[in-house]
């Protein structure tokens, strides 16, 4: 049996908007196994980003249970949750979220420094991560000196520097031209193949979703389709 990385049981997330209650996620149950590359697709407002936030513990569900790496998130304290995310989970966002005053190397080393790894060791690992994404020659560059595609690759290196078993990506190609987007997707595919990383990627773009080997489609907060698209499907 492959390990179950994520499990959602009847998860609901409601928001108050004005006077009304909106159900962003409406009773979703699913399970993600180790090594899967899952694409979650849907229009804006379908609940796909909220689902990602719930899966990764960035938000708490209104009802239902979320298990991440076998642990019930509702039973963790804030500190335990922070630690779990820092050690086990990497994030990539649409707008890169790099710190503008730090160099590429410093941005990538940051998660290690927050985990109290020594600076010299952190920088050595950050160098390795930058090499993995093909940016060894940009170590000293600040984000504003990089193209969008390069910034996203730095963000990917930062997500990978702790070698987390789980990677969450929210529209990672949403702000890139098609060529840079493909480079980022190829890197994700490479991480899955070489490190056995489990990847959950939210996207509205069917071309990006086609890099996954399972496609979950959402509409109005519900899963309307869950289809294996990988080899042998």
């Amino acid at each position, binding site marked *: 049996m492959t390990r179950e990385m994520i499990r959602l049981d009847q998860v609901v997330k409601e928001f108050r908007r004005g006077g009304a209650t909106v159900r962003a996620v409406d009773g979703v149950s699913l399970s993600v196994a180790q090594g899967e590359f899952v694409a979650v697709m849907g229009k804006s407002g379908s609940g796909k980003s909220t689902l990602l936030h719930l899966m990764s513990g960035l938000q708490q569900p209104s009802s239902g249970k979320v298990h991440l790496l076998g642990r019930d998130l509702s039973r963790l304290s804030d500190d335990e949750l922070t630690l779990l995310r820092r050690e086990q989970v990497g994030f990539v966002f649409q707008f890169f979220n790099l710190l503008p005053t730090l160099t590429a190397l410093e941005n990538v080393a940051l998660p290690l420094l927050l985990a109290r790894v020594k600076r010299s060791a952190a920088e050595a690992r950050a160098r390795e991560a930058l090499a993995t994404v093909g940016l060894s020659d940009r170590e000293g560059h600040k984000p504003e000196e990089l193209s969008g595609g390069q910034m996203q690759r730095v963000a990917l290196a930062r997500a990978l520097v702790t070698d987390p078993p789980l990677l969450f990506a929210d529209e990672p190609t949403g702000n890139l031209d098609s060529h840079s987007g493909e480079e980022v997707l*190829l890197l994700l*595919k490479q991480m899955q193949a070489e490190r056995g990383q489990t990847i959950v990627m939210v996207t509205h773009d*069917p*071309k990006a*979703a*086609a*890099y*996954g*080997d399972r*496609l979950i489609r959402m509409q109005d907060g519900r899963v309307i*389709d869950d*289809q294996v*698209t*990988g*080899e042998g*499907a």
Partner: protein
Amino acid sequence: MGQIYSTLDRMLKDGLVELAGAEGADEERKTYRITEAGLAELERWLARPPLKARPMRNEIYVRLGLLVEKDLRRALDLLESQRRVYHLQMAELTRAKIQLAKERGPERLRQEMMLDAALLHVEAELKWLDNCEARLRARGGMEA
């Protein structure tokens, strides 16, 4: 084979090719040689954009057209199953593209361009399915 000869005959008549004469004992075999006029026409042909768009020959157009009159619900179901087929196709084409990215050589560029064309066509079909669904739901007074 017959079609090749009728095309060659026409090109011969138009002066785009000429007979090079039979060589050796093999009298059955005709050899053609491209003429100056033929080369000029080839250059023009290479640079000319084809005027016809892709033919509308997908079976889904016919089936959907028939189902719309019969049963809106079944038309919507067909859209959904067609969507699943297209997502599978895109994943398959993408795997070919990933495989190709590992290769070097002159064939790669040509094949990448063909795969891009195939992927973008499937993407267009997916968008069209979304459009159809919106139209059908509006017609049926259903919510999106």
